[in-house]
């Protein structure tokens, strides 16, 4: 086991730059999730760490060693692929034993370790099957078993759950978490599903266009998003945004909604900003009144779309309240949970 460090990693395909100067250090035993929209470069980063992709600039360190020039086999990493990448012609047992065999381990040790991993992942009854005789979830577990069995320095996951249905995904999510707790290997987990990232990781790194937007614990990202992108990306349903300008210390939209907020900075009047309020932070009753245009009950909570002066706003209310389409509802935004972002630069200006 070892920590991992990326120093100013860059990647370009020809003249197209995909990753620009990523710095990231992962501590020994830490579980870090990389999230971002499709095409932002998550897989590319992971594959560079694995040694499957050349790096254009910077250094990758595993433990204290620069591994830039090492082949995947020399890096002592394990990877779980999105498509599982099981060897179709080998049994589950063979799939898991392959790496140990290649590294010349004695037969009885291979057998012991494969069976141990199989027990941990409940794969024992499946050891003699071929991959095409397994369900999606089982294949997923074999892919993880193949990684676990070899006791690597670093675990890499590339969207390992995206081929599973929703229910199985939740189940496998908790299995991955349990697994990590048991073996405690440094892990990097790539996903575009922010819920997955938040539930699994010690630390989440948000990526966009090949640039790190923010990194921190899940709750830190949720509570204190550094910029508009993170604010919009983290949290479900997504944060509501209103274009506004500063007027006497509050933010005012073109349609006359005003949002007071707390800031350490002195903002001049006329400064263009974006106001952000999470649906779950609205309180019922208050100055912002509008017509209910859409109601989506989900059981415990109800999503209500409210027309605030022409602005479709998502509000989360407790399902105790019965709300009908067409009714009017008034809400308020708590001052300490009103986020203000610079409209141009995107960075957060409010204190929260």
């Amino acid at each position, binding site marked *: 086991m070892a920590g991992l460090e990326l120093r100013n990693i860059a990647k370009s*395909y020809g003249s197209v730059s995909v990753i620009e100067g990523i710095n990231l250090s992962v501590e020994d035993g830490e579980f870090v999730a990389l999230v971002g929209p499709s095409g932002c470069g998550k897989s590319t980063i992971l594959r560079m760490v694995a*040694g*499957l*992709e*050349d790096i254009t600039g910077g250094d990758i360190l595993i433990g204290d060693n620069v591994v830039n020039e090492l082949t995947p086999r020399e890096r002592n990493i394990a990877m779980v692929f999105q498509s599982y990448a099981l060897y179709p012609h080998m049994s589950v047992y063979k799939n898991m034993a392959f790496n140990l065999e290649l590294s010349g381990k004695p037969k009885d040790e291979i057998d012991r370790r494969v069976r141990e991993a199989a027990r941990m992942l409940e794969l024992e009854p499946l050891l003699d099957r071929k991959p095409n005789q397994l369900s999606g979830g089982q294949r997923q577990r074999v892919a993880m078993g193949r990684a676990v069995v070899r006791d690597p320095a670093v675990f890499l996951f590339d969207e390992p759950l995206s081929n599973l249905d929703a229910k199985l995904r939740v189940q496998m999510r908790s299995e991955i978490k349990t697994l990590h707790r048991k073996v405690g290997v440094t892990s990097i987990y790539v996903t575009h599903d922010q819920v997955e990232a938040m539930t699994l990781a010690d630390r989440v790194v948000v990526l966009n266009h090949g640039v790190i937007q923010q990194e921190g614990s899940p709750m830190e990202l949720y509570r204190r998003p550094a910029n508009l992108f993170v604010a919009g990306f983290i949290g479900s349903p997504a944060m509501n945004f209103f274009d506004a300008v500063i007027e006497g210390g509050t933010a005012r939209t073109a349609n006359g909604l005003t949002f007071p907020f707390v800031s350490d900075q002195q903002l001049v009047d006329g400064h263009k900003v974006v106001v952000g309020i999470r649906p779950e932070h609205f309180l019922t009753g208050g100055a912002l009144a509008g017509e209910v245009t859409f109601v989506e009950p989900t059981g415990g909570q109800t999503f209500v779309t409210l027309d605030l002066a022409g602005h479709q706003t998502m509000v989360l209310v407790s399902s105790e309240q019965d709300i009908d389409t067409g009714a009017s509802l008034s809400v308020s935004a708590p001052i300490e949970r009103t986020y203000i972002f610079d409209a141009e630069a995107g960075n957060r200006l409010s204190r929260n």
Partner: protein
Amino acid sequence: MTETTAPIDAATASSGGRSERLPTKIYLYTSLTILAAIIIIPLVTTALGGFKTLGELRGNPFGLPSDWQWENYGGILFSQRYWLQMGNSLLIAGLTVFLTLAFSAMAAFAFAHVKFFGSGFLLNYFLIGLMFPAATAILPLFIRIRDLGLLDTYWGVVLPQVAFGLGMSILLFRNFFRNLPSELFDAAFVDGAGYIRFFWSITLPLSRPIIATVGIISFVGSWNSYILPLIMLNSESKYPWPLGIMVYRGEFSTDWQLILAFITLTILPTVIVFFAAQKHIIAGLTAGAVK
């Protein structure tokens, strides 16, 4: 062999991943260059040989000609026989392609879409044709063509060629037709189209890739074919180029420089078309294998 697989895409190199290390690259380029030389040297020396004199051919078979003999090529290009043979080949191949496409597409359509008694049996009947070459039945075929009065006519070559190509073509067409979305049929039949209408205005326009594939297979087969014209044609004025090349060699048996020029000119169209349309040609010629 009934599953449809993506056609072979030889023109796409893999991208992404790690670039090769220097020793690997050296190994690859050295081996590939040697192999490429083995492929290309016979071809290039053939083409160059056509520019030499017989004497130089003997002393210097590999190098560039010291004195370019343009008249070797010129003489052939200005002769009637070269163009006549190319024309014959083109005509025979054109007819073969047209009839193969028409007959096999229609039959395959019936097999793919019409349920009728004995269709499975009849399809297998056609597939027998995949199993043996025309050569096995060449003598009875000759007698049949003779008795039909088609000896020494283009049809005497074209019809057997089409017949022997039907098995593979029907198979390729049928597999393609069966994989067209079935909603199309439902929609067309709801709109009141019958089978023939449907074939003409929906199936065929959607079948361009498979028409190209079958067309290429049958064109290349006919363009290069030797044994059928050899047996069915008597008069030199009807000879396609593979026969013509043999006759030419017979006439100028030791004038290698002329023969080489003649070979070069006859394969030149193939080489040009191959490099111009390589993607389609490779996909076509290997389609019978992957399907």
